[in-house]
């Protein structure tokens, strides 16, 4: 086992920790008087955090020169997918009480849900094509396809911006983070970073 594999063993439970804490909070009833909303929001925010973390890996690799970092990327990405799916399930189960019709209505009426759903579709597609055989099969197209993660992240930020009632601080911070990570990939910057 090389150090990457060992570190992965460490990071894996770390990535599950937020879920663990949320489950614990659910079981001990400490999510406050409106647990459905709190749970949904927390899961959504974790999905976004994992997306940002996943996007940070390539720039980090450029900066540190540690190429093996790339081997963490799939795991982080799949955790983003996991939290995003749980986020949608929490919404459907606890906020809507499994009223599919309301979700369908949301899906054509409410712009913030529409962009959220688009992000989910992208994340699912990327998750399905994240395996080694898929990478081989898609060849060059795989890289192109997986650039869509930036679109997914931007849609998630838009989703957040559109659901805010008055304080834009948080979505703006996420938006700027994603924007900076994108800028770091521009070839000129990349060179500069490599010293």
């Amino acid at each position, binding site marked *: 086992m090389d150090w990457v594999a060992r570190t992965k063993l460490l990071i894996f439970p770390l990535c599950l920790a937020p879920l663990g804490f949320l489950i614990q909070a659910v079981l001990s009833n400490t*999510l406050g008087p*409106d*647990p*459905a909303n709190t749970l949904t929001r927390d899961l959504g925010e974790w999905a976004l955090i994992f997306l940002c973390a996943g996007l940070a890996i390539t720039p980090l690799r450029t900066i540190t020169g540690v190429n093996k970092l790339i081997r963490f990327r799939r795991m982080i990405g799949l955790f983003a997918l996991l939290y995003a799916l749980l986020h949608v399930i929490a919404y459907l189960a606890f*906020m809507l009480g499994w009223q599919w019709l309301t979700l369908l209505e949301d899906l054509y009426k409410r712009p913030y849900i529409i962009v959220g759903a688009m992000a989910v579709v992208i994340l699912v597609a990327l998750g399905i094509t994240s395996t080694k055989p898929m990478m081989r099969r898609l060849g060059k197209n795989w890289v192109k396809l997986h650039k869509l993660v930036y679109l997914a992240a931007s849609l998630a930020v838009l989703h957040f911006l559109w*659901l805010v009632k*008055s304080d*834009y*601080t948080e979505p*703006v911070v996420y938006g700027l983070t994603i924007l900076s990570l994108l800028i770091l990939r521009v070839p000129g910057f990349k060179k500069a970073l490599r010293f």
Partner: protein
Amino acid sequence: MLIRTKNRSDVRSSEITSETVYQDRRRFLKKGGQFALAGLGLTLVGCSDDLTQTIAAKNTPASTDVNIPQFNAPQWLQQKVAAHTKSQFLTEDALTPYPTVAGYNNFYEFGYGKQDPAEHAKDLITDPWSVIVEGAVEKPGTYTLEDILKPHDLEERIYRLRCVEAWSMVVPWVGYSLANMLKRFQPTSKAKYVEFHTLYDPEQMPGQRSRLSSIEYPYVEGLRIDEAINPLTFMAVGLYGKTLPPQNGAPLRLVVPWKYGFKSIKSIVRIRFTETIPRTTWVKSGPSEYGFFANVNPNVDHPRWSQAMERRLPDTLWEPNRIETRMFNGYEEEVAHLYSGMDLSKYY
């Protein structure tokens, strides 16, 4: 008077007619004496004490002996609030427990999280407090809180509160009818609307210092004059038998139970009578999302979510407390006439 009995809107299949309930509650009140108990008695359903207890146990853990804390307030106000009488403004729904009412608030002046106001507002200075009365009135001026309250006796009213975010509570307020307050200032015939302002004090209110906020301060709300003098419209200075906690709008806040919660402006320092429609905070921030009237209406969605249902707090994940939202929050009989002939999907 108004609320107590058999509005058709009030009775649902699961409920027993309210006359008996009301009587039962009275008896229960007398017996229990203590206020916290009174809250529990509310659950209705023809309450045998037994049943009451079961339901209470389910809805309001440990609230039989909840101590309602007393926040900073001048002695005279504490006494005045304590001396309130019961009123006939009751609902058939179980009271929302005190910790939820005082722990889950939207008061953006003190932060955007629901728990922020309870944390950041607790030292709000509410004494001395005065209110500027201006505009189309015979008796404008700056009134101290004591001045304002002196001639009035206070009563308790239990109202449903429906937030535009699709959650709701049932709250026992202490205060008096807004009409009685406004009368004293002698509005002139030009007074078509009343506008209210919340305190503006960035030193004390961190939310007012935020840069990335879409809402402007001071917070402004308003009512049409006929809405303002409707008997339901209430000026509250107390909650659960004590003076208002700062996060709930101490020392003086509006309660308009048939409108979304944001109309019920908190910590009022200015009352202005105007001839034109007030430019209220949420309308300025998003005119397509928030209207001046903001009547609770299950048939008119907020652009970002449906208003057909609400989560009655405290909610749990496993037995979601989702209930259908009622027209005018269940106060249709009392207020629908104010809007006859108006297209409520246009004047939302």
